Structures are given as structure tokens and as C-alpha cells.
């Protein structure tokens, strides 16, 4: 009798060893220190179980490499000023327009619609309501850029998702859409 018990216990243990892979757990790692980077990784924490993210904001008064500072303030006055003064540094060419179209498709069209008429998917599905048609708004290069930087009313800032150049390319494409709509 003891033999049978021993046999079945071994069998259960063996089966248990092979069968315990849950999709909620990672597979075992051989030498885990080769899987996990020693330096900080994007989206990581400074220490394990710390609440401090390894992504930090630039120190105040400094400009991160490749970034372009923006001097207009996030107020009504700043908006008016940007609307009058701010001019695109980019040349108006096909290349910029094409990339602008691509970026517009990713970051703007879900709400503003592929034509700029305010009839994007989120508008059709009534997640966002009252998205204006570009032709109904008195906008300029400067004001479009300003709104991408800071957002306006319900629209949030899209500065973190687009680079300086991409923002101006989107501006060029929005102006094109607006002109098409005005026709």
C-alpha cells in the first residue's frame, strides 16, 4: 500500500512541476540580471517599489536637447499674441505637407475628422460633442500652433506627442484642410 502512495505522490509532484505555467506569471528567467537593464529604463521607477518615476521633467530654466522653447503664455492674451505674430519656420512644400497629413491622421483626425469638419470617429460615436468645423473658426498659423501646444477648452495639449517640426507640419496641413473647406 505504501508503494502505491509513494508512486502517486511522485507522479503528482512531477505533473505539478510541468503544469504550473500561468499566463499571469512570467516564465522563469535564466540569469535575470541579463534580462533587466542596469541603467534606468524609460517608464521604469528609480528604485524597485519606489514611487519615483525614472522619467523626469527637465530642470527648471533648462531646455532639453532638440527641443524648441515656446514663449507665448497659456492665456487669452498669449493666444491673441500668437495668433497675430507667430509664423511657421518651415518651408511650405510637399514633404512637410505629407508628413503633416500623416501626423494629422494619427493625432487629430479621431476627433476633428479626416477632412477637418469636426466629424471624426469620436464625434460620430458621441464621445466628444460640438467639435468645430475648421471653416467656422477664425484661425491662423500662429493660433493653430498655440492650440496644439496648450490645447483649448476641452482639447488637451498635444505638445508631448509631437515634435516642434511635426507641430508645424500639422499646422500646414490644417491650413490646407481649412482652405479646402472654405471653397
Amino acid at each position: 500500500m505504501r508503494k502505491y502512495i509513494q508512486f502517486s505522490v511522485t507522479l503528482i509532484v512531477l505533473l505539478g512541476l510541468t503544469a504550473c505555467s500561468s499566463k499571469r506569471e512570467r516564465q522563469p528567467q535564466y540569469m535575470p540580471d541579463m534580462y533587466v537593464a542596469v541603467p534606468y529604463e524609460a517608464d521604469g521607477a528609480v528604485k524597485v517599489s519606489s514611487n519615483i518615476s525614472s522619467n523626469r521633467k527637465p530642470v527648471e530654466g533648462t531646455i532639453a536637447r532638440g527641443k524648441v522653447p515656446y514663449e507665448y503664455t497659456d492665456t487669452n492674451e498669449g493666444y491673441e499674441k500668437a495668433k497675430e505674430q507667430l509664423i511657421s519656420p518651415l518651408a511650405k512644400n510637399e514633404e512637410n505637407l505629407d508628413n503633416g497629413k500623416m501626423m494629422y491622421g494619427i493625432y487629430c483626425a479621431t476627433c476633428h475628422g479626416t477632412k477637418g469638419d469636426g466629424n471624426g470617429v469620436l464625434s460620430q460615436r458621441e464621445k466628444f460633442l460640438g467639435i468645430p468645423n475648421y471653416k467656422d473658426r477664425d484661425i491662423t498659423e500662429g493660433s493653430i500652433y498655440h492650440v496644439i501646444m496648450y490645447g483649448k477648452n476641452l482639447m488637451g495639449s498635444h505638445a508631448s506627442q509631437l515634435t516642434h517640426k511635426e507641430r508645424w507640419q500639422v499646422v500646414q496641413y490644417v491650413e490646407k484642410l481649412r482652405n479646402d473647406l472654405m471653397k
Partner: protein
Amino acid sequence: MKSVYLHNRISKLLLKSVTFVLLFLMSFSVYSQDVDEAKQGEGKKLFKSLCASCHKLDKKLVGPALAGVEERRENDWLKKWIRNNAELRASGDRDAVAIYDEYNGANMNAFPQLTDQDIDNILYYTTVGDPRSKASESTEVVATTQKEAPGWLIYILAAIIVTAFLIIASLLKTISELKGAPKTPGLLGNLHELWIGVKQNTFLHVVGTIFFLLVAAYIGFGSLFSVGVDQGYQPIQPIAFSHKIHAGDNQIDCQYCHSSAKHSKHSGIPSVNVCMNCHKNISEVAENTVLVTEEKTYRKADLDKEIQKIYKAAGWNSETLEYTGETEPIKWIRIHNLPDFAYFNHSQHVTVAGVACQKCHGPVETMEELYQFSPLTMGWCIDCHRETKVDLKGNEYYQKIHEQLAKKYGVEQVTAAQLGGLECGKCHY
């Protein structure tokens, strides 16, 4: 006593249901008597297209909640304000200046194109509100009554049935033995005899050993090959976020949130400000949204709580609509992780090669809970590099070298592998 109790309960139930039905009918009839549906529909249409980007009926948004605004302000004043609020403020109207200051100088657009009739329709809609939808109420009832039986119950039931059968069988056997039937050795006895037979047979010994070794090798190598390969890994994330709802139903582009994929090594997890770009407005999910995970079925009430977690992380007060400044990180659990000894760059694949995200990450737009679709092993990388033909259009700088390579390999279009995509040092250095 018991019957009286039962009787009481039934009569109470009857009374309750009758009152409920009466109330329901009353509310319905009141509604249908009072509302001018044409006017309401017209107003609703205008409200949704012009006002709803900043106003809700029952809740403060960019501007104040507009339900019952007619009771708070004069009709003439509202018309002036809606047509051109800047003019009204300039004329020195104290109410106008006060409300402007209360909302921190949020500029409301002027709507000179609206007629008196239009504005009256909008105001009518803000007063009567939406028609109550019967559909949503009934589905809610269905939702609460629907309850799934837990999975382990089935196993327990099966075990009980099997034990019952065994007990019955042994009882029957004992009864027949008591009645005088010859004693049989029983199941265990039979097995024992078989075992003794096997132990004495050398041929069976050899076959058994070979079989055992093969099985052991299969299991052993299988488990060794799964070391560090997390295909199908699906951890429980701190927020029940559904890619199906966001990328599938709402068709938000992958790169809207994972915006760093186009320029950087990482396709990072979006920071909370990106969530807030939409969720500043969307604080509640739609009525019939359901998210099913293995452990739990999330319905509207649960999902609204999940959105509150974003607000907590962003430090957003959804009552006053202001940031408090008290933020905390959301501890998402990383799924896709290449070992540190393999270099991978998202921008090279997304921007330069133009590979669709789904090629490696699978049908993410259908996943309610994200899991790792690909094995992310070296063999898997190399397979793709061997198969993928490189698009060389618009790349004049390298034209000559591309032509030479194509000639060398005798092909029309070179693959990533032929461009050097198999060299060790490309990924391991």
C-alpha cells in the same frame, strides 16, 4: 404562522409592484404630455453641435452646467450673451463680467448666426433635458440578474458524482459477497498482480525505461525552451484598460498614445497627460460598456471607478475640474521585455521600415486585456528579417549600394537579412 408570513410577503410584493407600475406610468404620461418633441429635438441638435464641446446639462465642464439655466437668467440676457458675450461684457453688464471671472476668463465663442428661434430651442432643450431611455433601464436589470457559476463548482460536482459511483459500486460488491458470491481480488488486487507480472518481464523493463526517458527528455527540453519566453503573458494591470475599446471601437491610432515609437528606441507607455487629453471630458463610460477578464466582468459602475484611478494619478479633481498637484505614478506592468543583451529600436521598425504595430504585437485592437502575441525569440526576429523585402523607394542616397547588393544576390528586391539584418553585432554588442 408561516402561511400568514408568506401571505404578508406576497401582499407587500403585490402592493410594491403596483405602486411601481403606477409611478412608472405616471412619469411616462407626464413626460409625453409636456414635452414638445420637435422643439426639443431641434434644440438638442444645436446643443450637441455648438454647445456640447464646453457645456453639459448636469455637470460643469469648461463652462457651467446648463440644465435649468432659464430659471437662473433672463431670456433676453441669455440671448445677448449667446450671440456675443464679449460685447455684453464690454457694455459693463455686471452678471456677464462676474460669470466670466468665475470661469477664469474662458472665452466663449460668439454665435451671431443663431436666430431667436434657435436659441429658444436650445434653451428649451436645456430645461426639459433628454428623454429617459427605457432601453438602458431594462438592460441594467438583465445585467444584475445575470450571474455566472464559478468554474471550480463544476470540478467539485464531478468529484462528488465519481465518489458516489465508487461508493455504490463497492456497496454492491459487498452485498453480492455477503449473499455468497465468490470473493474477487478487487481492483487493487488486480493491479497488484499486473505489477508483479510487469516487474518480471525484461522486455517490458527496457521499453518502459526508453519510454520514460523520452517523456522526461520531452518535458525537460520543453521547459528549458520556455525559459525567458513569455508568449501569452497577460499580467493583471493596475487599471482595467481595454485596448479593444480604445484602439478597436474608438479607432484611436496606436501612435496617438504610444507616440515615442516613431522617434525613439522605446514605444513608451503613455504618460497620464495623454490619458487626460480625452478623459478630462470622458469621466464615465457609455451605458452598456462591458469588459470581461478572466477574474471579473467589469460593468459601467466598475469601469467608472477605473477612470477615477487616472484622475487620482493625474491629481485631477473631477468636481472642481482643477489639478490639485498631488500626482502619483500608475504602476503598469511591463509585458514585452527583450533581454538587456539584445538591442531593439522601435523607430527603425515603425518609421524607417513602416512595419505595422500588429505585425509584432498581434491584433491588439481586439484585446480586452493585453497579452504578448509573439515569442520575441531570436529565431522569430530572424525569420522576419529573412522574409521582409525592403522598400527602397525614395532612398537615392543608398541607391548604388542597393543595386550592387541586388546584383550580388541575384534578386530584384533585397531582404532585411541581405542588407545585414542577420549580423550578430547589429543587435548584440
